[in-house]
Each structure stands twice: as C-alpha cells, then as structure tokens.
C-alpha cells in the first residue's frame, strides 16, 4: 500500500504526519525544535516544488509513505489523482490519500506563510514549529487512524 500525506505547501503538516508514521518523530511526546528541523523537507519546500510527490520512506510493514502539496485544491486533489489513475488503469485502492489540513492551526498557517512565502524564515519558522507542537497529538491520532486503515487493507489482501 502507498500513503500520500498532503497539505497546502507540503512543508509542515504533511511532513509531520509522514515523519510520525515512519518513526522519525516520536508518538508519545512532543518533539523538540531540532527534531522537527531534522526531518527531511520540513519547512523547506518552495512554490516550484508544489505538486511534486516526495518519497519519505517505508514504514514497519513495508508501506510506501509519500508527501505532496496541493495548495487550495483541498479534498479535490485526491479526486483528481483518482481520475488520472482511472484513465491509465492504475488501481487507486493501492493508495490512501490523506489530507492533513484539518489539523493545521492558525499559527501554522501564519508561520508557514511567513517562512515559505515571504521567506522570513527567522520569524516564520519558530511560529510554525510552535503551532505544530500545539497540534502535534492530533497528527499522532491521524497517523494512528491511517495505520489502522492500512492494517485492515493489508488484512483483506
């Protein structure tokens, strides 16, 4: 199975969820700033990277984990990808496309915009990390739900 975490810019919430999924970030405590920054692609993507599907790693069951950005497409991104999959006869049931935006708070939005769009990294980055910490266990819960879905899907196969 393949998991695709997506968010607006592919820099913060999707990366956090993917990192929790892969064990790069802990699921039983809030990570430090350094731990966030040590995750690949965290607060790194720029506009030209939007849409690119980045491979993050394999989880403990061999599922592929990816991240991408979808800007304002919202839940329609998954629909667009499924339409493309239908055209070329790819089995979209192999994919779990997860929108992490519902778990993003205002501080993450402000910090992410400031850091990525305005390039005021010294101001935006601490704000987005702080916001990320506030919502951290929501991402942990999201990942637990995704892993449960993966277990069910693998069991059916």
């Amino acid at each position, binding site marked *: 199975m393949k998991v695709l975490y997506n968010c607006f810019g592919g820099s913060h919430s999707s990366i956090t969820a993917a990192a929790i999924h892969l064990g790069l970030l802990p699921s039983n405590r809030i990570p430090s700033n350094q731990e966030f920054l040590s995750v690949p692609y965290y607060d790194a993507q720029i506009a030209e990277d939007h849409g690119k599907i980045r491979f993050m790693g394999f989880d403990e069951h061999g599922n592929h984990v990816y991240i991408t950005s979808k800007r304002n*497409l919202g839940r*329609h*991104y998954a629909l667009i990808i499924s339409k493309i999959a239908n055209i070329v006869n790819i089995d979209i049931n192999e994919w779990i496309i997860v929108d992490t935006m519902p778990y993003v708070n205002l501080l993450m939005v402000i910090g992410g915009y400031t850091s990525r769009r305005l390039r005021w990294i010294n101001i935006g980055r601490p704000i987005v990390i702080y916001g990320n910490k506030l919502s951290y266990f929501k991402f942990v819960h999201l990942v637990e739900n995704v892993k449960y879905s993966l277990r069910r899907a693998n069991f059916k196969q």
Partner: protein
Amino acid sequence: MIIIYLDSHCCFRAATAAALHLGKISINNPNLISELLHLDFFYSGKEGLVPGYCKKIGNDHWGNEIYILNVAGEAQLIKRSIHDFLRLHNIDPKVFLIVDSCSCHKNKLDIFIYILLRLGFYELAKILAAYYQTKQILKIQKIVNEVIQEFE
C-alpha cells in the same frame, strides 16, 4: 497518447480547445457562439464546477485520446503531480500531454462567469462563456496548434 486540457470552473476554455483540436468547430464560422453552445460537452453543469471533473471528449486523427479536466487553476501543480504519480507506477509520463488552457487569458469576465455559475445562473453563464471564448478563440487556437504540431 493521452491529451488532457486543464482548466478551471466548468472547463469552457478546455472544451473549446478540445473542440478545435477535434475539428468540431471552426474559427472562421460566423456563428461560432451557436456552434459552441451546440457542443454537448461545452457546458458541464454543476458537476463541472467541482475540481476533479474529468470528461473524455473523443479521439483525434492520430488516435490520441482527448480529455478535459477541472483543476481549479492549479495546472502547474497538477502537471507535476501527474508526472510523479505516473513515474511511481513505471509509466512513462510522456504518455500524457498535459496542456494548460487556463493560463491563456483571465480577466474580470472570467470571474463574473464563475460568480454566475455559483449563483445558479447556468444558462446565462453558458452564453456569456461562449461569447467570451469567441473573443479569445485565436489564443486558444494557438495553444491547440502547438499541441497538434507534436504529431504533424
């Protein structure tokens, strides 16, 4: 090859481009508005307002499949995603030719048509969109010519 014309709300531009590609309309026709309005795929209704709306229009002379797809204006983003998605499945991205028809022109009329669609004035929006496409037909034809040149 699969050719996808990308567009935003209701895909009027993409539908016009697809019609030109398939030779279903002619830019020299004095009744172009009427010709556009008579195309069954020119107007997609409420369904077309939703990003992800995808419709196969037909096959051209070279056997290429022509589609239109509503991507809410995020054409470059979707292009990158499609390329990466296909590569992950070991499919050559060159199988797809993705054409951004929503960047060819945007002005206040475009926004006005979108507002009309949102408010439910579908017939008025459709007529206005057909009129608007006739004003931009040369730009759309240019995009289509660039696509067709790949095969000639």
